[in-house]
């Protein structure tokens, strides 16, 4: 994802940022294409610092970068006009109704007040808060506040939406709604999304591309599909009946077998193919219900990347 012809949403080059003895970003270089990108990393990995750097809120000690081709050191305000940001922490404009909250967010970006109000109604409907738009925001539940922040972030129709832990504190239904909204914006509305989260299934549900940070450095970057590559000679196998006998049978043929619940993870010997498993099942009169090449989960990709540090 680093070729010169690939369109770039944002790019950081050798960015280093330290706070006293803490190095938040360590010579970070990264190019991210438009679309939905998941930002992963353990606590203190530099995710928030990277987001703030992109927003031009942080002046790096070293290095630089661009967002939409605009220099993060010189055109911070122009960059922020085109970004919608939903912060991780619970933060509100005090003493306002939901509709005023979103309209105010639009005005702060520079929308005319009538447009901001009209647009606030639209995005609140979109975020599923239309029924509570006239309630004071202090009375909103955590999930409603997250959706309110999302509505405030998209009120000016940004090109890039940054969601920092958007499903924090949400119940399963609310989380589902939030992911559906993020997915819709990323896939159907042409909005690029940078989705920072600890919840890998959430990232996987929304994003097609991930960036993994740890210790302020880039560990892994790429499309989720590519990163979850098929393991050569490894298969997931599920049988209709008891599978321990079958496991013993194929182990005797040199296969490495692990039982995971009702699934067998089988690594066949070099030079063999899946035909070996079909043949053995037929001979022993086992019925195969599921057989496919084993792929890494996102969790495995993440853990493997983090273990490297």
């Amino acid at each position, binding site marked *: 994802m680093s070729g010169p012809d690939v369109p770039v949403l944002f790019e950081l080059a050798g960015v280093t940022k330290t706070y006293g003895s803490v190095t938040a970003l360590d010579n970070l270089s990264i190019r991210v294409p438009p679309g939905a990108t998941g930002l992963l990393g353990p606590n203190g990995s530099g995710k928030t610092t990277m987001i703030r750097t992109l927003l031009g809120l942080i002046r790096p000690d070293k290095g630089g970068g661009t967002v939409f081709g605009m220099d993060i050191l010189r055109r911070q305000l122009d960059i922020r006009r085109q970004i919608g940001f939903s912060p991780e922490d619970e933060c509100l404009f005090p003493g306002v109704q939901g509709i005023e909250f979103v309209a105010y967010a639009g005005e*702060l970006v520079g929308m005319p007040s009538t447009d901001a109000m009209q647009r606030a109604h*639209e995005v609140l409907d979109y975020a599923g808060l239309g029924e509570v738009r006239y309630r004071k925001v202090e009375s909103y539940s955590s999930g409603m506040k997250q959706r309110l922040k999302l509505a405030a972030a998209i009120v000016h129709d940004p090109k890039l939406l940054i969601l920092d832990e958007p499903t924090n504190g949400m119940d399963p239904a609310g989380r589902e709604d939030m992911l559906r909204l993020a997915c819709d914006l990323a896939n159907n509305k042409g909005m690029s999304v940078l989705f920072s989260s600890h919840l890998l299934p959430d990232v996987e549900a929304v994003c097609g591309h991930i960036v993994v940070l740890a210790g302020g450095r880039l560990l892994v970057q790429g499309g989720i599909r590519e990163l979850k590559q098929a393991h050569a000679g490894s298969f997931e196998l599920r049988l209709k009946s008891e599978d321990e006998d079958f496991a013993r049978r194929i182990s005797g043929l040199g296969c490495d077998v692990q039982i995971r619940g009702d699934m067998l993870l089988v690594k066949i010997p070099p030079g063999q193919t899946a035909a070996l498993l079909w043949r053995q099942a037929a001979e022993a009169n086992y019925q195969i219900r599921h057989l496919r090449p084993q792929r890494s989960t996102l969790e495995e990709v993440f853990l493997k990347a983090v273990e490297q540090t």
Partner: protein
Amino acid sequence: MPIMEQGYQHWSGRLSGHSWRWLAITRHGVRIQLRNRFLRYVLFAAWTPALLLVGMLSIWGLLERKSNLVATFVEFMRFMNPNVIADPRYYRVEIWRLSYGYFMHVELFFSMILILLVGPGLISQDLRVNALPLYFSRPLRRVDYFLGKLGVISFFLGMVTILPTLIAYLFGLLFSLNLHVAVQTFGILVGTLLYGLIICLSAGTLMLALSALSRNSRYVALFWLGLWFVSSVISSVLAGVHHEEIRHAYFYNRPPAQIGAANPQGVATEPGDRMTSGLPQDGMANARQYWRNFQLQRLRDSQTDWRPMVSYTANLLRIGAHLLGTNQAWEKLAKLEPDTWRRERLLTRYAGPRYPWYWSAAVLAGLFGLSLCVLKWSIRSLDRLK
């Protein structure tokens, strides 16, 4: 789910530039504050002195034109020196100065109340609900944030100082029907507007700094009351103590004979000089003269007395007196009094503090600088670890 759910629509409008972005914060803040019914009552009450100012300038304009319409009002102006009523044009500037001076004096009181109602929550509430990331992740600089918040305070102070000043000025001109009035009084208008701006800037910044020091707006309100009342009380106590020191030095530390020797000519006694009542009879006449000298001494002393500067509002009043020229106005009116003693007594009673205005300017500038430092320190940028 609305019946006509349209889903997400793109917006194709244009965003405004950065220069006036702070105005969005001000507009929003004013809208929110105006929901406070008590604030609306105070605002309404604060316009009453403005009506009096408009009335006074209009009446004076009619008086200059010797209009019959004001014959009734002249009866109510007997408290003024008859010479002033007899030649209103000659004393026009002084009357305007004093009218504006009294008006701003009262409005300063209302301004303090308005700031108390509007200001405490401006930043402290944002700190409490962690709103700063919402502001600073948008195309806003810290200075825009401060300006926007200051704009909220300035709006309300402007409504009770600057707006009435302009309206009253227009009425004054309209009723005088004399362009020369504009030439003569334009400086007063500029001075009053400048004074209003100084109040907005100084008190507004100070309140914002206090508001940035706590997440609890009640504490901020208490800080403000403390700054306003306690500093005034301390200043009054210090002034009272100093006054007593001078009085003792004049009356009680010298024997009556010495008082008489100090003033061999003697003068006619003044009935009602309360301060002489405790003195021995034989020294009474000279003591009264001494009392007058004491008043003169107080007047002279007020030119170097720093004690009023302890009070925050007294500093604003001193700047106001300088900008509006109220002390000069009193000096001119005092010349109408028949003798020096009465002139000085009038000045002592009515003219404000006479120490150099730039002392107060220095105090206010210091507070302004301190406020900016507090704001800079309290409202940090997001360039930090969480």
